[in-house]
């Protein structure tokens, strides 16, 4: 007894103090990250959005003029919607392309080696820069690009077509190409959780391949589809490189406008207001998709 009492009086380590220190150790980096990379920039953006420019100088204030402008003056609200449309189409096509790949990776490649190779093939394009990939599409889709040359060689067309490049088609195609891996990985991550025996059970109970897909695979994969959809939508929505490189005369998107507001007009407050509007939209979108993901997520 006395021995133990001695130990307690000498600087014995206190469990509670250790726990507290440990908690601080793990919490500090995320808190710093959150404050430094999210809270502060968002607060600055919000602050700017309520002010106005006087010639080249910013005047702080509290005015909703910029928001009114975003909502009522063309082209801002229209371009936010247009960008959302491009984002949605990107998400749609990415998901459509990604789904079979994810299925193949999850269920039809029995050998780990083949799975690994496909995985590398999927993420390989990420090793090349975005610009290189966008330029590659230019050389494919151009008036004298590979596609036109090929079609002429095949005798499908006599004159090169200009409809492949410098329009929304080429933007969505490029965005889809670049962002599909995100969809593949998030759908795959979800499908991978699905035990093969569920598919066998469905087949065993008499389900056709289609019924197995509709009744078992699809419902379980929805959270992955949603997650991939949110990622590809967001990336497509906010993109400004594809419209600049592969877009046509009408292919402007909201990010390009924000850039021009900062670079040409030096209208930081209006740019900030657009930013805040988009952040709010993104928060609403994420809330809805998180809710749906939760609703559809299954405990396996």
């Amino acid at each position, binding site marked *: 007894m006395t021995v133990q009492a001695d130990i307690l009086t000498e600087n014995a380590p206190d469990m509670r103090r250790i726990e507290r220190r440990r908690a601080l150790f793990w919490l500090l980096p995320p808190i710093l990250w959150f404050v430094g990379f999210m809270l502060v920039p968002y607060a600055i953006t919000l602050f700017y959005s309520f002010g106005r420019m006087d*010639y*080249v100088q910013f005047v702080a204030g509290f005015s909703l003029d910029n928001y009114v402008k975003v909502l009522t003056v063309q082209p801002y609200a229209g*371009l936010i919607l247009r960008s959302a449309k491009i984002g949605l189409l990107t998400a749609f096509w990415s998901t459509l392309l990604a789904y079979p790949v994810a299925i193949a990776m999850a269920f039809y490649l029995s050998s780990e080696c083949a799975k690994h190779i496909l995985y590398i093939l999927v993420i390989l394009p990420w090793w090349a820069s975005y610009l290189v990939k966008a330029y590659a599409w230019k050389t494919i889709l151009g008036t004298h690009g590979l596609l036109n040359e090929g079609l002429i060689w095949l005798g499908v067309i006599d004159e090169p077509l200009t409809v492949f490049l410098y329009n929304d088609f080429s933007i969505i195609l490029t965005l889809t190409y670049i962002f599909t891996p995100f969809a593949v990985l998030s759908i795959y991550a979800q499908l991978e959780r699905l035990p093969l025996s569920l598919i066998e059970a469905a087949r065993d109970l008499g389900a056709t391949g289609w019924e197995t897909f509709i009744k078992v695979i699809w419902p379980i994969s929805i959270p992955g589809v949603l997650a991939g959809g949110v990622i590809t939508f967001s990336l497509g929505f906010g993109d400004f490189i594809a419209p600049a490189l592969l*877009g046509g005369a009408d292919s402007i998107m909201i990010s390009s406008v924000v850039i021009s507001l900062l670079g040409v007009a*030096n209208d930081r407050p209006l740019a900030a207001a657009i930013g805040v509007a988009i952040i709010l939209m993104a928060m609403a979108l994420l809330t809805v998709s998180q809710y749906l993901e939760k609703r559809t997520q299954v405990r396996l």
Partner: protein
Amino acid sequence: MGNVKIQGLAAGAVLTLGVLAASQHAAAEGSLALLTWEGYSDDLVVAPFTEKTGCVVEPTYVSSNDEIIAKTLASGSATIDLVSPSNDATMTLIDAGAVEPIDKSKLPHLADYFPVFQSPSWLVKDNDLYGVPYGYGFLRLVLDSNVIPDAPASVSVLWDERLKGKLAMWDNLETLYVAARYIGVKDVYNMTDEELQKTRDALIALKPNIRKFWTSDAEFQQLYMQKEVVGGNTTELAVSGLWAQSADSLKEVLPQEGSGGWSDSWMIVKGASENPCVYAWLDWISSPESQALASKLTGYAFANAKSFDMLEPEALALLTKLGTGDPEVQKSISWWQPVPRRGAYLEIWNQVKAETAQ
């Protein structure tokens, strides 16, 4: 001046760097802080200067005139000695009192400058000259003469139906000015709402002809070489580059409505003239020798007429073909001015781009 502080706050990182730079600046005798475009402080031009004067050049690169304005207003001569804005930004700095007048007596080379750069409107206030003109150029209108053999000397040719889907236009307010000149606006840098609306309509009418808005010289050259477009408005560098790639049928159209012109000038940040290196630099960069070097480096023309005499024969031939060194042509140019209503201009410009072409 609370606003300035706020701007400084937002550029917090820049400010911190600035303080660092300032302390260095104070320590090293004979150093010169430039806020400029990357091409303007190349070793080719800077090394002879440092050798001659012992002044060490510390450049900070910028990517837009707004950046120059913002940083100059925020930190002043504490961290910057000289800036090199373009003619659509110079008056902003002059009006803000952020730069000081030039003492012409210290710069003998100014006498050799082209007349148009002797006392350009964008640098003169109350009879004081506030900057030393440097590189300059005109915007060009070019078309493939095989497609339009009979091009009139007017921007109206852009609206020609034969050019449907065949033009590349600059993604810049200059293209808005082109349309404004087309509809006969007198002062394209100070348009009324009505004029802006008309300009907008003219641009929307032009859209079916536009295949692509370009953003760099290289892009325009590529668009042309890959036969995506047959012409548009572009820069001298793009035109000379294309000609060098034997795009012989590409011909310049000299529009009677005029073309935009840009001109960069070195300006002294208020209070910086105490630094002896400042006038040494201005003297050096206004000399024909240094400008010939800079021209070789950048491909631009420079304001000292004598610098043309020191160019290599091919470079001179090209600039002559382009009419860049012709004082008469220089006078006809619609030199860029600051646009007080830039926000409204940009809004119209973005509306045009958002409009779906028919």
